[in-house]
């Protein structure tokens, strides 16, 4: 009888209270009301890994997505097509438009680097024939020894300078060595020296202020405080500089601020003199693994991707306003976001999110519903 009383008056209410506390602060029915079909079925498989995307706009406007296979879609059509690689079976994870040409780093299926290639998508059909499927491309291989036949980890236009990160296997030490190059014309690649060589590849670089080239590689933060970009100095042995227990994820310049993310839940903002940081953003007591940023000029906010938790919004760029996005009902909410791309040429702008394993997502404004909506390409 005593046991019965305990169960009735103590244990059951306690269990109910615990359960109620565990309930979410989002009403399911109200959320269901906003559900819409997200799959636009534009020819990309929904579970592929997309690493980067970019836009080429000259005579024609093309979107390009590096997803192992390099895909292209004319902005006037609704179908992605693969591009023929320079070597049969070659893959591509990094692309950039620079000087009116599309640059792409390719590697073979066994991981062997093939180097950096480029093509003019306007040169149609001489070297870029989009009437074929896959699109027939006559790639031009960059002949500079700095990038030729190298593994290309990153190619990025940093304030008018094309930066290329490479990795070379050192068979003597049985480890990779990482290098960084810059070029103003896309033909001649000058090495960028590190005062202390990075143990990890360069993953991002930004031009800040007048001028400072900031570079991140693993948990190392480098800066070159004068143009041209040729000599990087490690910053964060100094404990007042950003420190991370993991590795840095991305860099972004917005106005007079430089933003930095890390894969242990930390975000920083640099105003030219001091670094300001958030408290560590956690999920289930583990720091969120932040990746690349995008300056969402449509709203004035900053978005930062994560590995496995969608993306976070910094309203107006304020570190204190960090909020997880998008709706939990979308797969994107739990996705790993490698990078973003914002196309501002089509008002009010289209935001792309490249995910690892959840394909390519596109956020557009639905004028009928009066809200922004994500769709899977």
């Amino acid at each position, binding site marked *: 009888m005593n046991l019965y009383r305990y169960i009735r008056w103590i244990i059951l209410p306690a269990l109910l209270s615990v*359960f*109620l506390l*565990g*309930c*979410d*602060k*989002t*009403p*399911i*029915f*109200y*959320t*269901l*009301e906003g*559900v*819409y*079909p*997200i*799959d636009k079925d534009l020819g990309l498989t929904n579970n592929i890994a997309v690493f980067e995307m970019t836009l080429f706009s000259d005579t024609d406007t093309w979107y390009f997505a590096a997803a192992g296979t390099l895909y292209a879609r004319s902005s006037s059509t609704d179908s992605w097509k693969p591009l023929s690689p320079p070597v049969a079976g070659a893959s591509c994870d990094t692309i950039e438009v620079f000087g009116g040409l599309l640059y792409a780093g390719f590697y073979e299926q066994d991981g062997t680097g093939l180097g950096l290639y480029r093509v003019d998508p306007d040169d149609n059909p001489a070297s870029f024939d989009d009437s074929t499927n896959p699109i027939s491309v006559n790639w031009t291989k960059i002949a500079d020894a700095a990038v030729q036949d190298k593994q290309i980890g990153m190619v990025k236009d940093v304030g008018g300078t094309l930066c290329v990160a490479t990795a070379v296997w050192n068979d003597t030490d049985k480890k990779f060595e990482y290098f960084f190059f810059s070029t103003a014309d896309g033909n001649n690649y000058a090495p960028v020296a590190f005062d202390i060589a990075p143990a990890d590849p360069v993953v991002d670089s930004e031009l800040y202020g007048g001028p400072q080239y900031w570079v991140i590689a693993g948990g190392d933060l480098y800066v070159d405080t004068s143009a041209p970009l040729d000599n990087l100095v490690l910053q964060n042995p100094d404990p007042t500089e950003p420190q991370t227990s993991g590795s840095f994820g991305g860099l972004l310049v917005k106005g007079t601020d430089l933003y930095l993310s890390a894969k242990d839940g930390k975000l920083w903002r640099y105003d030219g003199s001091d670094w300001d940081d958030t408290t560590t953003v956690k999920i289930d007591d583990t720091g969120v693994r932040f990746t690349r940023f995008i300056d969402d000029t449509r709203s004035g906010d900053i978005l930062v991707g994560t590995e496995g938790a969608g993306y976070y919004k910094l309203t107006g760029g304020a570190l204190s306003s960090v909020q997880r996005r998008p709706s*939990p*009902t*979308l*797969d994107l*909410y*739990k996705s790993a976001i490698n990078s973003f791309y914002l196309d501002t040429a089509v008002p009010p702008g289209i935001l792309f999110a490249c995910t690892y394993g959840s394909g390519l997502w596109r956020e557009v404004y639905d004028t009928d519903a009066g809200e922004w909506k994500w769709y899977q390409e």
Partner: protein
Amino acid sequence: MLRKLNLVLLVTLLFCCLPVGLAFAQEEPEEQPVEEPFTIYTLGQQSLSISAGMFIPLFLQEFPLFGGAVIPNAEDDKMLKTRVAGSLQWGIHLSNNWMTGLEIGGILTKDINDTPYYMLPITVKGSYIIHFFPFEFPIFLGTGMNIMKYSDILNLTWIVKPGFSSIWKYNINWGFGLNVVYWWVPQFWPDDHTKGRMGNFLEITLTAQYNF
């Protein structure tokens, strides 16, 4: 000696068969009054039921109950797809016509993007049984708590489940039939009243009932 053993075996067999024969003799239909129902429940008799079938999302509705805008689950399963429902029920008879009990149900469905959606109602249930030999027609009302999960969102709500069944009594223990149950799931949202909604669903399930 062998003859004695055979006699003992024969007597033993006769004793064993006697109760079986009596039991069959009791179930002879001609011994039942024709005008009486096949089963008559008394206080304390119990029943277990298992049901499985179809779950049909109907519509959501804004508050208030009378006048709130209706958001239909359109023809193309705009919000939720038609999928499966199931339940387990224990009941105890209070009289020949009244029964009360507990029911644990569950539905599993998906939204238009294949995001999973679950409901797990745990209800107390009262039934009034109309007998029409060899059929029974319970009319019932259940109410209790409902655990809902959609994607990563977990909610707890109140639920009301009115419905009826038609059961064909196969024998004194077993009955088989069909349940039609309306699920009314009001989700009040005190933080923001405009986000409160009432979920309206229909369950159509086949059921097997065991009385003991």
